[in-house]
């Protein structure tokens, strides 16, 4: 792993979100929109929980077959884009630079600040501990939702993978819980981005230039 992003700007400085990150972010947003909406359509045809039916107006596709068509269309974008993103994050050192280190004490302090609505966000280039935890968490959940999805798509050809989840219905449950976690993440993520519109803008234009030095460790 190397501590350089792929597209450094002039004078050894690059933007906070280099172009590949921005492109992959928005492809992922669209793929997630398709996967969640069509997944809800598929869920509704045979619900896991009798008390939970997703309103038809929120589902993607008209009937079950259309939900399936969209899901097996969107999966290529979600999985290949996700794979590229993880490879990029590891290879360029972006994950290590932006998401590590994650310290328990700092996490508790940030969480308390957040509850008192006293979070500072004047520096876009530095993630606080809660942000780091959420981003690491959603990346891991993203990996798990793809793995459980593969097990559901190919429970016989990939029977070894399904065995890790126990049973077919367990894999469905894991897939569903991952979706729920991602939806919660998206709600928080979008709400905060709208509260601090500069963060949203940064994911479109690239944001402020940052030095190529590793990010400073917070005190």
């Amino acid at each position, binding site marked *: 792993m190397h501590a350089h992003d792929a597209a450094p700007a002039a004078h050894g400085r690059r933007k906070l979100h280099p172009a590949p990150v921005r492109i992959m972010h928005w492809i992922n947003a669209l793929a997630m929109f398709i996967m969640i*909406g069509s997944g809800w359509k598929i869920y509704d045809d045979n619900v896991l929980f009798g008390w939970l039916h997703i309103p038809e*107006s929120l589902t*993607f596709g008209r009937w079950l*077959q259309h939900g399936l068509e969209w899901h097996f269309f969107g999966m290529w974008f979600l999985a290949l884009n996700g794979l590229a993103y993880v490879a990029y994050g590891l290879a360029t050192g972006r994950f290590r630079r932006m998401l590590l280190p994650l310290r328990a004490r700092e996490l508790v302090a940030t969480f308390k600040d957040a509850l008192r609505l006293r979070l500072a966000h004047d520096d876009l280039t530095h993630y606080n501990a809660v942000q780091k935890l959420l981003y690491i968490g959603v990346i891991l959940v993203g990996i798990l939702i793809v793995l459980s999805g593969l097990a559901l798509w190919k429970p*016989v050809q990939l029977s070894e993978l399904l*065995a890790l989840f126990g049973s077919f219905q367990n894999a469905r449950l894991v897939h569903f819980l991952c979706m729920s976690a991602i939806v919660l993440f998206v709600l928080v993520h979008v709400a905060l981005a709208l509260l601090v519109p500069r963060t949203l803008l940064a994911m479109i234009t690239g944001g402020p230039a940052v030095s190529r030095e590793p990010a400073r460790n917070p005190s």
Partner: protein
Amino acid sequence: MTLRPPSPSLFRPARPPARDLLEENRHLIRDIDRRGVLRGTLSLGALALLGGCDVTESDQVQAVLRAVSGWNDRVQAWLFRPDHLAPTFSEAEVVKPPRFNAYYDIEEVKPVVAANWTLELGGRVASKRPWSLAEIEALPQQELIIRHICVAGWDYIGQWSGVNLRLFLERVGADLSAKYIAFRCADGYFESIDMPSALHPQTILATRYAKEPIADPFGFPLRLRTATKLGFKNPKWIVSMAVTNDFPDSFYRQQGYNWFSGI
């Protein structure tokens, strides 16, 4: 698939119309389908709400989705492991009776009379002589206790026995290098599978469930059971089988489901 769940509607007739009448006018009925109108209205609502998100019905979008589904068929054929066995289970886990599913309700099943029934053969087979149930049951029997998975998401463990399909195809002199096996059923259903799946060791022409003749709703006298496909790829009440190189299509593919539907 619960495409046509039993409706609790007040408007549901107490006595269903004659089956052949429904069959004859299937397209007409689909056009005026009450649920279709209802769903159409809901979709229209969604369209208004989401500002044009429900684009599934447009022809161009359907063409793209169908093309990707065709690509997914090829990927699945490539992923298929001909010798990899599906997990099997113990007799104690078998669900009796099995779970019913068709494109109509269970009360509408028209039983097949064994005495009048034969299995017709067609296409690339040396011997096209029809087979009686007794002749098929006299062939070596194979039992599978395997998981049945529906495209809708439910599953159960079933205990099926009958003749291995590869053995049967060899017995009738089928061209095993052909691409497809096409099935036609007593209720008008039609389905087809790829040759590698047909030749998988866990693919049988089932005549028994839990050691008893298969009950009427589940495909008496003969149905396909393969461990490597979703439930709807296992046609029931089979009346004819053909070996062919021309893509034979399937009932549910025509409605937008993926054709290969391997698991």
